């Protein structure tokens, strides 16, 4: 996968994790401490920073590699 595909894949995984754990993206944004527009950007444009994915994987208690799985 290209870097862009990986970033989009990570954004898709974040959306999935938010849906599993929160009733809305706003609720997640407040709990995690992000601006709502940043959450939207991650989901729609992807996450291209490894350290951000490290922190998200720790927060949701899922493996780091799960952010790059296409399943």
């Amino acid at each position, binding site marked *: 996968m290209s*870097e862009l595909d*990986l970033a989009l894949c990570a954004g898709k995984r974040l959306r999935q994790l938010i849906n*599993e*754990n*929160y009733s809305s993206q*706003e*609720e*997640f*944004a*407040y*709990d*995690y*401490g*992000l*601006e709502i527009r940043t959450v939207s950007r991650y989901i729609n444009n992807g996450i291209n*920073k*490894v*350290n951000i994915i*490290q*922190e998200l994987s*720790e*927060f*949701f*208690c899922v493996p*780091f*590699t799960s952010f*790059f799985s296409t399943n």
Partner: protein
Amino acid sequence: MKRTDSEVVEFIDDLLSSYDLTPNRAIFLYEHNNRIVNPNSPLIFIDYYKEDPDSWCLHFLPELVSSTAYVFGVSEDEIWECNEQVDVFLKNEDNYTFFGAREQFAFRYLGSHFAGSEDAKALIGLLFGDMSLTELVHSGLPLRYDYSTVPARLYDSLKKVNKEVPGVFHEGEKIVNLNVTTEHFISYPRFREYLLAFLKIARRIEDLFYKQLNSPLSPEEEREYNFYVLALDVRPVVMGSMNATTKVVSSLKSIYKEHHFDEITSYLRFDFWKAHLAEPWRCIEFTEDFDLAQQFFNYVPEAKAHFRNFSFASKHFICEYNWSDSINTSLDGEPERESFAIEKTESELEDDIEYSLRLSRMASPPKLGGIVVKEPEGRVFARNNPGLGPIALMANFEGGTAP
């Protein structure tokens, strides 16, 4: 005994700083409550935010003594005489336990980077606690972790992760400008007393806040309320540049009455963790009572993001760095810094493993057992009604979320 003016200024400065107040803020509160005897006082023209007490405190000493006596609810004579018992009295009194406990907490935290007994760590922390970690690594002082292994571990980790995320590792290049940070737990035996004392003050602020919306406070209630909101840096959600003193609340009363919300966090923002570095989650004792921690976050819901950051950093070495080829090829000055977290080993975490796991759980989403923080109704309402003037400020309140 008659004291010199300089001694009095020094006494006031020490007294106020114990509560994270400055002469500027004490005088500001004094004037804000219309207590200045002379309406033509030159105090009115002071730049309150100019931190240079030495140059002007002496000039305004009578006003400074009056304002300090008012803020603490003691006599002016006690201030003129530099009565040390004033401070001891305040800290030992039930309502002021929080401030004494906070001071000890901050003192302990300074030594947390170092190795050795608790006493040795506290002493080294007092002398060197304000140095950055990078400076400490080169200082030869006894540190808790051996940072010399971190560069090689970073290199190996990036090489491994490169299999999932190509481009993270730069084959044949060097890691340069490496900066490492981390966080530590401390043990604080007075933790429970400290947090309960905070909750007691927070509830008192809440009670007096609601009371003044309907009827005037008594002079002593007014003094007590104003002291607390200044010392804890409590601000109105709709006016983040001011402390929520009685006068400010009075000016916002019509907005408050027009829009009713159930929780105090829709009106006031408790911000003490940012101003005082006495973040309770740094204590191992914080993880031992989930309900108490939950009560704390009911007053400071936005602190969960800071607590989560601490939880992550306590388990990792956070590395910021550049690859050597990025330095060489960057056309516009400094290249963007990379960041990657190296997990601490079990032997590095030592006895902290248990606390670290509990803290991670508390920092996770509520569905996974984490602390519940509810976005204040006022913020939600403001976001959904952007045309409602001052109330709409809640939605975009500066500092409303962590960086």
